């Protein structure tokens, strides 16, 4: 599993405060927890921060890159913001691998963001939705995912850098959409050989739920069984990371040993 850290996100009050005050220490401390937990990619989202959005985005990216050379996922729903931010981050951090998070399967989004990815040598996360919004069924998700995948492949984005996100909705708001997302992963995994990456924004499933951690780790394992290869999550949640590692062992992706959790950490240089 490719672990995207969700924690450097302005939706969190501490990160929003850090951006407002240009306080690097807060960001660095949070980041270290994510790295120790096993994060492979750092998702960067400025959230509802006030002020210069482009400047904040570049500052947050550079602040993260002071601590780690791991890839960054530049996260915004605003295509126009990404069009401005991606070249600036690319220029500021020429050696860092980047992922654009995210693009929908709507034509105007793809027209802007896919050439941006190619021009800046980034990966891409494609949402299985278009101008009509989030689909309420499996079929439309698969259709959108396949459309995005084909467009990105044709434009020259390598298959291993294309992530399909079947869009996770909160369980209390949309109780049928979790299994629809799981089924969409299963069906999209056979659209192309080799398949692209599949990613979820995990915490969406448990928004405003008291047992959010249990919901997160249970749902993540269900998605992994369907073919999930990446997730945006809190890598400092050790129970969650232990569930990821255990599921990988049960899938045969890691060779079992009695200390398999430690073995996983040793492989990552974390133990």
């Amino acid at each position, binding site marked *: 599993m490719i672990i995207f850290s969700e924690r450097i996100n302005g939706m969190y009050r501490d990160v929003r405060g850090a951006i407002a005050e240009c306080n690097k220490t807060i960001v660095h401390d949070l980041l270290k927890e994510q790295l120790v937990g096993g994060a492979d990619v750092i998702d960067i989202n400025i959230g509802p921060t006030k002020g210069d959005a482009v400047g904040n985005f570049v500052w947050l990216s550079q602040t993260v890159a002071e601590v780690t050379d791991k890839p960054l996922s530049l996260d915004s729903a605003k295509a126009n913001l990404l069009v401005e931010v991606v070249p600036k981050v690319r220029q500021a951090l020429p050696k860092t691998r980047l992922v654009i998070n995210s693009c929908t399967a709507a034509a105007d989004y793809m027209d802007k963001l896919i050439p941006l990815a190619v021009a800046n040598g980034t990966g891409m996360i494609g949402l299985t939705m278009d101008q009509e919004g989030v689909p309420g069924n499996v079929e439309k998700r698969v259709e959108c995912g396949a459309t995005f995948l084909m467009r990105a492949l044709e434009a020259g984005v390598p298959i291993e850098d294309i992530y399909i996100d079947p869009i996770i909705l909160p369980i209390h708001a949309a109780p049928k959409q979790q299994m629809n997302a799981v089924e969409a992963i299963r069906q999209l995994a056979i659209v192309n050989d080799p398949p692209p990456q599949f990613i979820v924004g995990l915490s969406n499933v448990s928004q405003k739920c008291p047992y959010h951690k249990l919901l997160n780790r249970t749902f993540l394992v269900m998605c992994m069984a369907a073919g999930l290869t990446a997730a945006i999550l809190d890598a400092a949640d050790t129970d969650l990371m232990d569930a990821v590692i255990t599921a990988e062992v049960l899938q045969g992706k*890691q*060779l*079992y*040993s*009695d*200390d398999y959790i*430690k*073995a996983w950490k*040793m*492989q990552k240089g974390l133990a």
Partner: protein
Amino acid sequence: MPVPDAKEKWSGRIQTVTIGATPAEGGTRGRTVTIGGQSGIPLLGFDGEMPCVPAIAIDVCDKPPLDWPKPLAEVYGDVWSDPAAWAKRAKELGADLINLRLASTHPDEGDASPAQAVETVKTVLKAVDLPLVIWGCDVPEKDQQVMPKVAEAAEGENCLLGAVTEGAYRTLAAAALAYKHKLITLAPCDINKSKQVNILVSDTGFPLTDVVIYPTTASLGYGMEYVYSILERGRLAALSGDRLMAQPVILDVGYETWRSKEARSGDEAAEALGPAHLRGPAWEAVTATDYLQGGADVLVLRHPKAVEVVRNWIKEFFV
């Protein structure tokens, strides 16, 4: 119809391990032996590299073996009460490594002292300039007394010391680390335990890059397929990036082969099984060459005819 490209893209690689040290490297060996380094499935040249060829170690015991059958007695009987002479014979027969077994230290086989074991090792080191693989007697309490002394006496020679297990690993790992030897990790026919022993050894601070895996061995007709499948699974895990399984493998083919009734029985069984002087060596050679296809890196052998067949096989397919 186009032929599909079957080439695999592997992210991992077997690590290389060098045994022995020349005078320039602080030892007294005439040459060193390097094993491992494969970046693909064994013998699939298009799949990856095989930078090192498998090495042959020949058995030398520190006391006359009581149970070696006639075809082996004919080769070694005149030297087997003298480990130095025996080691020279092994070198003449084309060994890359001497596989020295300190069998006499076993409490039931003479209970030789650590000091006596040290003398044996020094004698063998003086007699031949090949790198050494050194095994205790497989009784952990005794090995923990003997092997640290042996490791100390052979400091600088970069020997391969056997073997640590899940139940007993601290003492020997510490000795190998202190006196800069390589280490064999042993888990009988269990790949999951094999990984576990490597985790435990690594926890002691011993570098996994200095480890050779011994998954135990079975001869042809006695469960060889189990060990073969362990070799395959270990190699696939390593090539997929599992650094805890990326160690070269040593197999004790001679010992296991010459326990089988097919190799041991004499010409009284010739009518059904063929003449004894050919049967045992053939059994040993077939077992060994099968394991080479599974990715074995060091084969411990006994009979010169088996050594010759395996050597030719290696020349044919690896060089």
